[in-house]
């Protein structure tokens, strides 16, 4: 199936939720409403689209914009050899999005990483904890308002 058709299909299937469909530098991008994420991705994973692999999952902090955060998902279809990028905006006051752990197993660690670095809550995640930073760490280091050189030693420095 042609990629343009898939994108058109998405627009038809989810008329209210798909905000924009575009191609940027050769990558297909779909911008959606965050409420539709789970249903849209479930649709994409099965036939006819067959985006069977979750390549990557990350977040971008657009400080000063509203809504502030943007979740970025990269899907890959092994049978059709196509990539797709899905983007959804999250407001700072409601940092929640549905978890994809039910669909892909690697979403577990990837979402923990985003939680660790940005503080996004994934609804339905079985074990949402920090992954890289230690438990007593305060704040979210990849947010733009977290200072680059701030230190938070677990044990106090010796005088």
């Amino acid at each position: 199936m042609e990629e343009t058709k898939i994108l058109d299909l998405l627009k038809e299937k989810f008329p209210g939720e798909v905000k924009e469909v575009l191609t940027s530098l050769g990558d297909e991008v779909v911008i959606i409403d965050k409420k539709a994420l789970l249903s849209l991705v479930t649709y994409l994973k099965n036939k006819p689209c067959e985006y069977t692999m979750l390549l990557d999952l990350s977040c971008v902090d657009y400080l000063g914009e509203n809504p502030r955060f943007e979740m970025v998902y990269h899907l890959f279809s092994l049978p059709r050899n196509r990539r797709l990028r899905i983007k959804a905006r999250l407001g700072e006051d409601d940092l929640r999005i549905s978890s994809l752990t039910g669909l892909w197993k690697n979403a577990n660690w990837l979402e923990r990483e985003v939680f660790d670095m940005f503080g996004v809550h994934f609804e339905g995640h079985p074990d949402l904890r920090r992954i890289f930073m230690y438990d007593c760490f305060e704040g979210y280091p990849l947010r733009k308002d977290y200072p680059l050189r701030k230190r938070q030693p677990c044990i106090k420095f010796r005088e």
Partner: protein
Amino acid sequence: MPTRIEKEARPETMLLNMGPSHPAMHGTIRIMLELDGERVLNSEVEVGYLHRGFEKTCENRTYFNLLIYTDRLNYVSPLINNLGYAMAIEKMLGVEVPERAQYIRVIMSELSRISDHLTCLAAMAMESGAFTVFLYKMKAREFLWDVIEQTTGARMTTSYIRVGGVRADLHPEFETALKKAVVETRKVLKDVHGLLDKNKIFINRTRDIAVMSPEDAVAFGWTGPCLRSTGVYYDVRKAHPYLTYNSLDFEVPLGERGDNFDRYMVRMKEMEQSLRIVEQGAGRIRRTPAGVLAQAVDPATAIRTSRRQKIKGGVKLSPTLEGAEKDKYKDILSADKGYVVPPKDDVYTTMEGLINHFKFFMKGVGIRPPKGEVYFSVEGGNGELGYYIVSDGTDRPYRLHLRAPCFHIVAALEQLIKGRYVADVIPTFGSMNMIGGELDR
């Protein structure tokens, strides 16, 4: 704070920590095992011991400066990391790279891939008791690193592949060194096949242990040799060809069962294919002319003379800049000005050269990709190594995210060792090729 496994563990079982300071955990990972005798009932993998804030650091460095941080991701094959980063930026800028530079990039990334696989299998074999194999493979890796060192000037932190091309041309002695390395590596591969393929101890510890089904491998986002060991055909070099891989003849070896032995075998076969690519690539680029120009003048004289008249002939550059002379630029770097470091010959002797140099390195000028975002991936030693870069039009990335292949692979470790013996943890972990720098970033 008690960890998940501490809360869930049954009272009659034993909890055992493997790592972070355990020789088989490579120093950067901790596996907590819930044991019943020698059986692993449950486990919990904890990562992050080598987290250095790579992504945060990159947001605060210019596009040119952050290249050195990419060396330190997968530190066994730094050239592939350089390549992925440089090509992501090139995709944003739309830079064309000369053919010779493309072949050099192919050769270098394949050499790195071989050294990556050698290191992985060497460690895996050593941890399961085959110390000879470890020494043989390290020997082969030395030859490959000699080739890399000769041209790039460094063994691990190369920073050789840059936006627009490569830093310097191949060393004049490159071909001889490469030939020797290829011959030696083939010899080692043959020896290792002889030592391990039918070795009962090795087979008992790897065959049918930690079996991964193709469905699960895809669900975990596995790529690279680990995915191919389960029989799924996916290689970025074939699926989304970059550089000159399209015109090169090579095969993608596949496994059948997805167990430890298949992961070993796929890597072994891949190294042979990589050697094939290296040979083809080396055959297609023309020989490098002998390095230093005959009439080159030394920099001090050149600067003195350039005050009165234009310099004829070349300027003798410092040995660290060997291969980056101005007349080689058309072969190794893109012709687009502003994206590549201006040739030092010009910088020392002409006004425009000096201005270009300053404009390239000055804060806020330099490489400035247009607003937008890009995802580009190359086939790294472990699998698909992808860079997701968001640019806001300034000289530093707004956000840089790395898709680290072994992050996805190590995420499956808990599932693979469940129900196995403690001794199986070690070859399983070894066959995954966990690289701390890439995993924890």
